[in-house]
């Protein structure tokens, strides 16, 4: 994905995060949000291996071998950080103490089902902490490209890959659109600047509910 699209998604994720929120960001695209938190808004980031208060990446040469995030990347600690064991970390996650988690996806569907941990016969990295995060976080946001490399929609009527969790996703942020999962189906809330509603409908396998006013983001 182009850097400007990544930045756009990061900025849009950041809008969902409120002052004082405890947030867990998945590896990759979701971490873009860090660069877009407004000044004066304090969001506390968790790393599920066992830390709250994750700070910016360290400068080259200043990496601490004992300071990594859940993706294995080097991190720093902000003032007010805390370290704890991984069982406590997942108690925080599963127990509903995390305000929002943002994860990537292979597929997401109209019911808020998410598939992001394996492609049978091809790739079995394991679910890691994703199933707990999606089950426990107060708000589950998916951030991903709208279509896969072959141009196929990743927003489906029904996921056909093994699920990470059932009916837990509440918001989908892609390079094309912002979709809300509702009991009635997927609502197209916002579209990316330069696109039309029709562009999004064409690129989406799932049926979308189109409100009268669709904003740009």
């Amino acid at each position, binding site marked *: 994905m182009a850097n400007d699209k990544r930045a756009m998604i990061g900025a849009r994720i950041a809008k969902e995060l409120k*002052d*004082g929120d*405890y947030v867990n960001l998945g590896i990759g695209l979701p971490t873009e949000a860090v660069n877009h938190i407004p000044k004066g808004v*304090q969001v*506390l980031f*968790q790393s599920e291996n066992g830390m*709250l*208060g994750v700070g910016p990446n360290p400068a080259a040469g200043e990496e601490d071998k004992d300071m990594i995030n859940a993706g294995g990347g080097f991190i720093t*600690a902000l*003032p*007010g*950080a*805390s*370290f*704890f064991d991984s069982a*406590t970390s*997942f*108690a*925080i*996650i*599963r*127990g*509903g*103490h*995390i305000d929002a988690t943002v994860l990537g996806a292979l597929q997401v569907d109209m019911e808020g089902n998410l598939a992001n941990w394996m492609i049978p016969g091809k790739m079995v990295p394991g679910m890691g902490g994703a199933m707990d995060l999606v*089950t*426990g976080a107060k708000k589950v946001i998916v951030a991903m490209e709208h279509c896969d490399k072959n141009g196929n929609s990743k927003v489906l009527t029904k996921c056909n890959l093994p699920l990470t969790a059932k009916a837990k996703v509440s918001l989908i942020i892609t390079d094309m659109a912002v979709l809300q999962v509702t009991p009635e189906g997927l609502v197209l809330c916002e579209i990316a600047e330069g696109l039309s509603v029709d562009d999004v409908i064409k690129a989406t396998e799932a049926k979308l509910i189109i409100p009268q006013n669709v904003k740009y983001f």
Partner: protein
Amino acid sequence: MAKIISAAEAAAMIQPGSRIAIGGFLAVGAPETIIDAIVELGTKDLHMIVIASDWETRGVGKLVVNHLIKSAQVSHLGTNKAIQAQMNAGEISIELIPQGTLMERVRAYGAGLGGVLTPTGLGTVVEEGKQIILLEGKSYILEPAIASDFAIIRAQKADKLGNLTYSKTARNSNPIMAMAGKITIAEVDEIVEIGELDPELVVSPGVFVNYIVITKEQ
């Protein structure tokens, strides 16, 4: 991020019928200032979840002698004659729970678990009416999580994010109760600036703490 409030404000959040997980063991590490504020307000019909019923003049014992407790999940009543009298008089209903089981049931709620399987209490009255699960030839009692609306706990220091440290055996149930409140209020001896607590020394991360109250105890 935790908000600093007064004990009276803390007490005012608690409603008749609220389920409250309260830290402390025999009143050591008990949130005395918040307890006093609840007594002053006189909020009745409370359900308390606590290790022991403490003494008549200290800890949760003060809630009992002021007739504010309707029911309790507790492991030990031996130091408080008032609660035994109220129990015998049918004024208070008590579920006695082995201490380790109580801790796991409270932790389970805070950790989003439905419950745990424990061998403690097998072959005793504790297993009565409960589901017994057989795993690899061993029996366990299925002990469900205990939900609470509020946790009121006592710590030594809090930073302004709500990160907490404890003092010696006053730690006891406090970090576990802290996990379990839908709203957790920590009474502390001292509030320090963010960054003043060693991140390795934080026992309860601030994510568990919603409000901080400064203790009035000397």
